[in-house]
Structure formats: structure tokens, C-alpha cells
């Protein structure tokens, strides 16, 4: 996938650094103007993204090195936020990685759940489940509930609805996902489909 964003730190940043090197050369030789090896964003690739909080649509830049997220900050080219981010946007890095207060090392966010889980009837805790099993079980339950509650006609009118299932949410998803959720639910006959826009 092509990067639309120009490499700000690699292109613009380097150009700026070069001009600064010239400016500083008469004053000090101590300043390392090339990205030092400890420069946080050395050898990172950037991709643009859009904030996951309010509907401002602020642009963000995700810097990635070796497949891991190094930094997230505002996209300075974005006309709406021009590099700025609110406190929530400024913390988007932490959705994936946080700093361990003990070691001060960056680690995976332990609050996030990254494997499927199931809670069985009456149980007081979660148990792990594989994706395959989860999908098979959910599909089976969807079919059972649909088959048990489906109404094909009412007063002679074809209605094809499934009153027994509801679907809630969508404002967090990308638009393509919203369409797929809608399409899946409606084709199942679900009428109780709603999202955050309702509240």
C-alpha cells in the first residue's frame, strides 16, 4: 500500500537538519545533526491515520519500526488539526503499548484483550476459546435464535424479520465494516439494529 504522507521525519526533517547543520557549524561541533542512533524515530516508517475519538477527524501519524509501534502524534499536514491532538488523541499510542512503571520499559498494553474468550452459563470467569470454535458456536446460536423467532409473513405481508436478535454499535468501525455489519444483520432479518448515533 502506498504511503500518501510524505516522509516528514525522513524527508522534511532531514532537510531541516541539514540546514541547521550549516547554521550551527560555526558555533558548535558538538551537536549531532544527523539523526543520532538514539533518535526515537530512527528508521521508522510512517503511515497516516485518523483519530479514534470524537468526530473531528484529526490526522495522525503512526511511526513503526520492525513491525512495532514507536510513536503516534498529530499529522502536521492535516488541515483540520495541523499536527495537534487532544489529550485522548495524544495518548493513542497507549491503546497498544504502555510504559511499565516498574521497569520503565515499553510493553504491550495489558489491559487489552487480544484473544477470544467465552463465558459459559453460570460461570463466574472467562475461559479461552479458539477463533474457529467461537465462530462456529456463534453462527450456530445465530441460526438457532433466528430459526426459533423468524417471522416470514404477517397478515399476509412478507416481512422476513428476526425479532430475537439485536445488533448495537458501529460508530467505532470503519465505514466498510459498518456496511458489512448492516448487511449481515439485515439479511439475517434483524430489525433491532442501532448504533451510538441513537444516543
Amino acid at each position, binding site marked *: 500500500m502506498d504511503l500518501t504522507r510524505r516522509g516528514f521525519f525522513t524527508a522534511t526533517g532531514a532537510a531541516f537538519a541539514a540546514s541547521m547543520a550549516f547554521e550551527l557549524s560555526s558555533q558548535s561541533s558538538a551537536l549531532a545533526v544527523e539523526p543520532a542512533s538514539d533518535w526515537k524515530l530512527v528508521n521508522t516508517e510512517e*503511515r497516516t*491515520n*485518523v483519530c*479514534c*475519538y470524537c468526530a*473531528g*477527524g484529526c490526522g495522525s501519524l503512526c511511526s513503526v519500526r520492525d513491525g*512495532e509501534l514507536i510513536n503516534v502524534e498529530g499529522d502536521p499536514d492535516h*488541515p*483540520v*488539526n495541523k499536527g*495537534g491532538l*487532544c*489529550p*485522548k488523541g495524544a495518548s*493513542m499510542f*497507549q*491503546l*497498544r503499548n*504502555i510504559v511499565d512503571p516498574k521497569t520503565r520499559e515499553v510493553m504491550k*498494553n495489558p489491559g*487489552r*484483550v487480544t*484473544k*477470544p474468550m*467465552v463465558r459459559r452459563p*453460570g460461570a463466574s470467569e472467562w475461559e479461552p*476459546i479458539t*477463533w474457529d470454535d467461537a*465462530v462456529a*458456536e456463534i453462527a450456530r*446460536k445465530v*441460526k438457532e*435464535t433466528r*430459526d426459533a*423467532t423468524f417471522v416470514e409473513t*404477517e397478515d399476509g405481508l*412478507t416481512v422476513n424479520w*428476526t*425479532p430475537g*436478535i*439485536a*445488533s*448495537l454499535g458501529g*460508530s*467505532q*468501525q*470503519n*465505514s466498510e*465494516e*459498518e*456496511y*458489512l455489519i448492516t448487511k449481515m444483520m439485515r439479511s439475517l432479518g434483524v*430489525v*433491532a439494529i*442501532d*448504533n*451510538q448515533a*441513537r*444516543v
Partner: protein
Amino acid sequence: MTSHWCDFRNTDVILHCGSNSVENHPVGSKWLNKAHELGAKWIVVDPRYTRTAEMADIYCPIRSGTDIAFYGGMFNYIIERLIEPNLADYLAGKEVPDYNFEYLLNYTNASYLLDPEYDFDVESGLFSGFDEATKSYSNNSWRYQTDSVEEWDTTGAYAWAVADGVPEFTPPVVKHPKRDMTLADPMCVYQQLKNHYTRYDLDTVCNICGMDKETLELVYETYSATAAPGKAGMILYALGQTQHTYGAQNTRAMSVMQLLLGNVGVPGGGVNALRGEPNVQGATDMGMLVNEQPGYLKWANTTDRSSLRKWLESQTNSDGYYTNKPKFMISALKEWFGDAATVDNDYGYDWWPKVPSKKTDPDYTHVSTFELMSQDVIKGFFCWGMNPCHSAPNASNVRRAMANLDWLVVADLVATESATFWKAPDMNPADINTTVYFLPAALIYEKPGIVVNSGRWLQYRYQSLEPWEEAKPDFEMCDLLWTEICRLYEDEDGANPDPILNTKWDYYIDGKIDPRTVAWALNGYRISDSNLAEGKVDLLPSYSKLAADGSTACAMWIYSGFWNNNNAPLDPSAQPVGRRDNNDESGLGLYSNWAFSWPANRRILYNRNSADMNGKPWAADKKLVEWTGEKWDLVDQADFVAANNGVPVPPDDKSFFMLWEQNARLESYGMVDGPLPEFYEPFESPVGENLLNGALSSPCMSFAEYESTKHGDASDYPIVATTYSVTEQWQGGGQTRMCPALVEAMPAQFIEISEELAAEKGIESGDKVRVFNNRGSVEVAAVVTKRVKPLQVHGGQQHLVGLTHHYSWAGVFGTEAATVNDLTPNVVDPNSFTPEYKAFLVNIEKATGGER
């Protein structure tokens, strides 16, 4: 939003009412500051002195739940001070510098004559047409008198409507309304409006709302100064306006205000709903709502939309752009069902579920969903990144309802309150037989896709890296589930499998589900030259190419044109949605070459209204469109018919062409609870009477009859409460509570209390306070502040408190807290079915052992 974030800077007066945008939509702050520094006046009307109020010039307090009294007073002020004194002069051809009569007369329905039966009865607080038994209105008497009728010319402009492949339907008839351009006829909308709002004088409004008269008058004077031609005022609102039993009437009121002031469609104007979720605009566009279909079309139902023919006949506008609805509808069905959709089977329309819509049918929206769970009607539930156990009103009722489910699927990042409802402090897991599946979701930067901001900009999110461990994008989850469900229905017997098996699901590239193919579907394509399964697509340039004969497929007509480059259909950066040119050629911050703004890359909706009847901009330095004498000079994409088959169309008064009458509605027959915004007290009101009419609360509000709603009286719960968000946390908290820096910056749920109330109750900042009503009791930390003050209401002192609502039991790094939405009532607006979070009653006391 009718405009967009960067347009804020073009305004002359900013009015915040029902929003705290500096806090909850911080991106706007930059642009508000710019306007302010260019000399704009800034007004904040809010129960609390918010962070937004600190930025403003004028802060005007208001009792939660009394917005329509405030707006009605504004209408009355505008009519008394600006319209009435100048109308005769204007009609006599004199220059009126302070008021834009040209806009009012030509672009709104002020001059339209209403049905002679139209009426409002102050004593009962009811408009004409009310049926006591069903507590609902018939809108027959709210419509216009007809001057003449005109039929569609199906041999000329409307020949497409009878072409091969187009389902048969009877085209609508244009009923040209009667008008009185002198505004003298007592049945004209203007006269009715004037009469209606004379009751809303300054003293009455202050007595209801609780601000002092000088402040109110200053607000009205400052804001109504934008009535001058060339001046713009902007209203910014959010949930503070919508989360009421009359929330939709609040938005109507704001629209009426903006139309009276000529502020719609001009740079720096508009009615701007600041939307609060990253893709809630997209979800609304997508029609992820009971009665909606993608692209603001209405979903099939059992009454006026019970067949395709009925749909076409009830939904197709007689005039204006929505005469094209059949094209959008047939294209949507073709995208949905593909080859299985033919003209002979009504393009598969009957495979769609029809929403029960008789007055006696149950409602299926958000709040009623939980009633249906309590009644064992709904047995299976999908929660896609939404957390109703935290954020739905009367949340303890929600928890108990969900315990009736057979199964629940939650797709989210963290184990939210909804995923763990069986672990809530007041639940016993052993008694709950619900099977709960948690599906781990990918983060925004772990998947690609489109997101739509509040200014209707479609932007692309590139995938930066792989999801952690087994987390998956929602599109992948959907595909896995759908594929398996289809397999079951192919292999086994079951209830009517046709709707499932005829659904087209061909969104794959190289055998892998790929959202880019969904983007093609949303944009629309010509069917003859496309084969999505083979990765071949002939994308349409825009929705103007959609057809009603089954030759085009398009899931979302309003987006059409956002992904239309056939040279690189798989490369988002080569599509309009991926544009990144941030030059502002307009000088007005339109940024027309950045991403794509629906519809048709239009940045400011209704922009025809930025110019006068001759097509000259009201403000020469803020030109969006201009008639040169020969053609339209377009800085923004025209939101009107600028040319017909290449021939320029000279300026006329058809300035709101999405409505059949093509003029904006000061009075609207489209609302279920009244054609004009009328003030009613909230469901739970601290006062015993409505000072403006004989109905205490909205006669049409829904669900007040639910047993779970538990109305509380002011005698037990004398304090008005409202709920809100802080900038450091977000909504149900699922995401922000997993970010330690945000938890640290705002670690608690709190209640803001005035110094006066705190003194009465012996509460100090940091103390634990118990807040309670009939629905629940929660303990939160006290913030005693000067920023909340008691108000003088109905001649007495009225206390207000405000509560944040971001924490609950499922915190990971956060603070365990009670669920504030245990207190909020599950009553809703009858138009939007949005609950009343913003005005309800509580009492408070210092919690036992509640010292800091």
C-alpha cells in the same frame, strides 16, 4: 454539520448551546480561537461554566432542560426587534441593513400558507391533530395550502421513471404551495410563528431558564446581529441538545433560529452538530438505525413502505433532487442482492426485513431493545464496540435485561461492562445463563479503512501494523461469521434461507476479505463491466450516473465519487478519499482537495443560500458561489442545480433542493411532536407547572409508561442533574480507561456542586457524595466549584449538579466506580428515540464515611 471544522473561523458570532466543544471536540478550538481573534463574539449558554465558557466573551447560565424556552425567546426577540419594525420598509423597497428579508422571503417557507385547520392551544399545550388515545399527532393540518398541481413529465425530464427495468410506480404530483410574499396572511408561516412565540418574552424565559434578564438580552442582541446580510452566526451543539425528550425539537429550534437570521448555507454559519464518535457520522450515513437505510433512505416497513412500489411512491419527492430516489434505491438493492435482484422480483425488496411500524407494534431502538430483552423477545445480542451496560440510561435495568439473553457477542478492545455485565457488583453470575463471547478487535492503526468526520469528510486510515496476537478487524469477524452462517443454511434446513443465500457477498481480493472492494460497493459501479469476484470493477464517477433500471449498483449514493478512479481501484491514495493537498485555494478553509466530503465533495451544505436572489454573495469576501451573469462561478461544489445538461441555470429561489418545496422549513410537518418547537418541561421537572402552556412535559415523549422508568418527584429529588464528559476521558471509557496517562489526568468520576449547595449539605471537595433517585444510588467524588451556581427559577432558588460518567466496575488501570447511568431515565424523544440524559432529578448527601 452543515459546514465543517475549519469553517468556524469564518463566523462573526459563535453560539455554544448544548455543547462544550472546547472540551469534547477539542479540534474545533483552534478554529474558534481564530474566529475570536478575527473579532468574532463568543457566547456560551450552559448550566455550567465550562472550559468552553472560559474561552468565551459571554457566559449565560441556563437550567438543564429549558432550551426551547431560550430559543423561543430568541425568535420572539428577532421578530419584535428586527422583523416587525422593518418589514414595511423592506416591502416598500427601502434598504434594511439589520435584517435579511430577501433570505427569509425567498429561501424559507415564511410566506407559505398553512392549512386553515392549523392551530395551537395554549391551555392544553397541544397542536391541532392530537389523538389522546395514542398520544400522537396527525400532521394533516400542519401542511401547506396548495396553489396549483403539476404532474411529472414522463416523456421529458422524467422519462427515466418509466424506462425498461424501472419498477412500476405512480410518480408523485407537485403541489405548489400558496404563498403571501407580504407575510400578511394570518395563515402564513411567518404570522403563525410570530403569534406562537409572543408568549416567550424575556421575563418568562428568565423565570423558566434561570438566567438574569440583562445577560439574556445581551445574548439575544449579540447573536441576532448576525441577521444583517453578510454577517454569519454559528450554532455549535452536541448531546446537550439532543439528549432530551424534546431533543429533535431542539435541533428544529436551532434550525429555525438560523433560518430567521439567514445563517444557513453561508460561510461561518450553519447548524452544526458536533458528533462525538469517530465514525458516528459514517454509522448514521450507513443507516445503522432501525428505520434507516444507507444514504438517508428509509428502511422497509410494514405500513407505508411495505412493498417496493409503496416505497417508491411514499419516498420519492415530487420536486427537487430527491426525485431521483428510485435510482438510489434500485442501485442499493442491486448492490445488496446482485444478480438475484431483478425487476421481476422487485429487486429483492421483500427479502429485506420489514420493520414493524403500526402504532401498536413494539419499538426496536436502543432503549426499547432492553425492554424486549426483559420480555424475552430478544434472545441474542451483538455489541460492536458499544458499551450499553455503561452508557445506556437506567443502566441497572440494562444489566438485568441482558441477564435474560441466551447469548451475547461483544467485539471490543477491552472487557467492557457490557462484556462483563454478569460480574457487576449487583449481579450473581451463578444465576445468569447467558453465554458471552468476547471477540478481540483490532485497533484503528491495525487495519485499513474509511472514517467520516463530523464535517462529512471521508478520510482513509492506512494500516500501520498487524493486530496484537489474535485480535482481528471487524470486517474479518463479519466475514468469518457470515461465511459460517451461510454454510449452515446451505447445509441444513432452517427458517426462510432466501434472504441469506441471495445476499451478494463478494468482497474478496485474492480470496481474502478486503475492505477496498466494499469501498467499490459504496461508491457504486456499472454492473455490465464489473465482476467483483474477479476483482474487476467499473466505478461510477458520481451519483449523477446512478440509474433506476438495474444497470448500476451502489450501496451508498451520497458517498458516490469518493472512490471513482478506475485506473487504480485498489489504491486508496489514488482515490478522492485519499487526497492530501492541503492548499486552501478558497481562502475560506474549504480544503476542497483534501480527502472527500459527501455529497459530491461539497464542503458547505446549502451553499446556494450564501448568495442573494441575483446570485451575488451576501459577503463579498466570503464567496462560495456567484452568478456572473452567464454562469455560476463555484468556489465550493454547488448544492443546487447550477447547470442542466451543461447549460447554466440562472439564479432562482430553489435554494434547498433536497426538500420538495426547495425552501427551508421554519414550520415543519415532518416532526411527530409538533410543527413548531414548543417548550415542555423535562420528564422529571423540578417545577410543578409549565409557564408557557398547559402541558407539563412533552405530550408525545416515549417510554414514560415503562415500569422500569420510575419517575421521581421534585418533593423527593429536588436537584436538577445533568451528565457530561470531560476531555481526558471518553464516553463509556472503554478506550480511555486503558490509557494510563488519561486515567492519571482524570482518575475519578465526580459530581460538580455549587458552593451554596455544598454548604447546605456539608460537603467539601474530594468528599464522597451519594447521589440517588428512584432508579439508583451512586457514590462519586465531590468537586465543589464556583462554576456551578444555583439559579432563580419560578421565583425560587434551584440547585443543579453535574456528573461525569466515564468509570464503572470494569476498570483495568482506572478507578472502580459506580455506574452513573444507573440514575438517568430511559425515556426518549419520540422523533429520534434519544434518551434524556441531560435533565433529570436527584438528591445528594455526604456519603457515610465520605470524608476525604
